[in-house]
């Protein structure tokens, strides 16, 4: 389907509100992370938002790693 409009796609087809609630920003060990909640009450790291390059070398801060939701501070 081709839509001939100058409106961006996200304005024509707005995303479901629930999709936004899946991800959030939390701090873990003082490092900001974009996380996604899992069914087990943990947070799975989607993106490491730190500017310190060494934080990217630690396996526990890598995308896909999980940590308990209670360990997160906001």
């Amino acid at each position, binding site marked *: 389907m081709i839509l001939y409009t*100058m409106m961006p796609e996200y304005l024509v087809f707005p995303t479901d509100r629930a999709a936004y609630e899946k991800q959030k920003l939390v701090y873990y060990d003082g490092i900001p992370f974009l996380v996604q909640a899992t069914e087990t009450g943990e947070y799975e790291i989607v993106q490491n938002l730190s*500017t310190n390059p060494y934080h990217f*070398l*630690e396996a526990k801060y*890598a995308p896909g790693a999980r940590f308990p939701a209670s360990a997160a501070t906001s």
Partner: protein
Amino acid sequence: MEKERYFQAEAEGEQPETKTEEATAAITQLGQTNVPQMELDTNIHCLTIVGQIEGHIQLPPQNKATKYEHVIPQIVAIEQNPKIEGLLVILNTVGGDVEAGLAIAEMLASLSKPTVSIVLGGGHSIGVPIAVSCDHSFITETATMTIHPIRLTGLVIGVPQTFEYLDKMQERVVRFVTKHSKISEEKFKELMFSKGNLTRDIGTNVVGPDAVRYGLIDEVGGVSQAMAKLRELIEMKKSGEGKIVQ
């Protein structure tokens, strides 16, 4: 005694299993079993500007986006932290919100610490002011930057705006880029309004060495050149040899 030994044996028996579990977890997450460990302190921080630059409208989670509410506090923290001496900005962006992009660019330009930017892959659209905002800019050989006039739905701050308003907004981008790089306003506008380079659109796609030739970017180079330059700027700042020349 017997019991103790039993527990010990049990503990020993369990150990290898947990180890394998950890290893498999590492493989599923990273595709590798171990990651180099280092002390978590560095004088150079790096800021990655990836995907779209998100503005007032929150992009759906499947989009990769750089959010200014994440980036700006980090720039403030970098300015505040005395241990951080330099910042490397890595760009691979398709552009996005003009005001958010300019906000990030202005924050970087006004940072008191040495900054070096490097464009990898693409630094398109509003990525251009961010790339030139640093003290020294690099572009890799294959990286490209698309320069084009601002395009919008006509909706700015929620209401339709006049052409003059959009023209002024574009003028802000042009002024910022010409102020922070060696490109002249005429050349930048010529690239911005040239025809036949982009499909059904006006603008130019500038490849690495061309960006340097036009004076938009300072040098063609990769991570080693960028880090060397950043260290040099840090040394220069430390010894107080004059001001960093843009």
